[in-house]
């Protein structure tokens, strides 16, 4: 069953890429989707059936503008630090615990953290994220965990957990 879903996703991406519905393109796409499915189908997201629930897509649609807004703020923040004559940086590596259980949720959280204000995920061991932070503004783990991960965690929990 999961192989069929994986195959269909590959086909949709292929059709969107080529944007051509002639028999030639469709058959080539089917062959390559089949090869991809044989090799990588077993790595498809475990427990994918819960993504049939439309509520998750509703939260995903809410999450995208919030994420984009944070991302734009992050860019202006880093840009300001880059062009400031005295390089306003105070870097270090901090660790943050996450409450998200599924692997795909952790990956999306780590990617979101990398895209936001001066933070870069270096490693993920168990449920601990190691984050390089360009300007450490607080020494208290509770405050910086909320500042780095808390904003996204509650949405990602609703989308992926």
């Amino acid at each position, binding site marked *: 069953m999961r192989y069929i879903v994986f195959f269909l996703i590959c086909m949709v*991406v292929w059709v969107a890429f080529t944007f051509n519905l002639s028999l030639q393109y469709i058959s080539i796409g089917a062959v390559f989707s089949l090869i991809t499915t044989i090799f990588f189908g077993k790595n498809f997201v475990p427990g994918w059936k819960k993504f049939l629930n439309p509520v998750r897509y509703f939260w995903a649609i809410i999450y995208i503008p919030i994420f984009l807004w944070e991302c734009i703020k992050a860019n202006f923040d880093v840009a300001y630090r880059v062009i400031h004559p005295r390089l306003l940086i105070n870097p270090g*590596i901090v660790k943050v615990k996450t409450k998200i259980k599924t692997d795909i949720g952790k990956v999306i959280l780590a990617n979101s953290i990398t895209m936001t204000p001066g933070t870069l995920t270096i490693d993920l061991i168990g449920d601990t994220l190691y984050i*390089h932070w360009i300007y450490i503004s607080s020494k208290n783990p509770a405050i910086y965990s909320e500042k780095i991960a808390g904003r996204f965690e509650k949405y990602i929990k609703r989308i992926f957990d």
Partner: protein
Amino acid sequence: MSSIVGLFLGIGIFFNLLGCIGLLRMPDVYNRLQAATKCVTLGTWSILFAHFLHFGFTASGIKALIGIPLLFLTSTVAAHSLARGSYIFGIKLWKKSVKDDYKGKVKVKK
């Protein structure tokens, strides 16, 4: 319409330029990656989006639109693996860094 396309292209080029300046000015590899991932990714998103606005729902426009989530997944993972790889190969943090919680969690090569 073409003025909006021009605006997005301008934003994209501006952020890419800032990313390059950051790459030159920052003191160590981790801070350089910060500038490279954030500014350059948003700049490239903006350029891809301008491309989509210009060409609309054609083969070329849709390719640009698919590029945006792909870039979100690949550039962040690339930055993560570069940072982790440099840590494991023993590249030190900048001497004025204030904190290092990652010390001792992975085996560092001498």
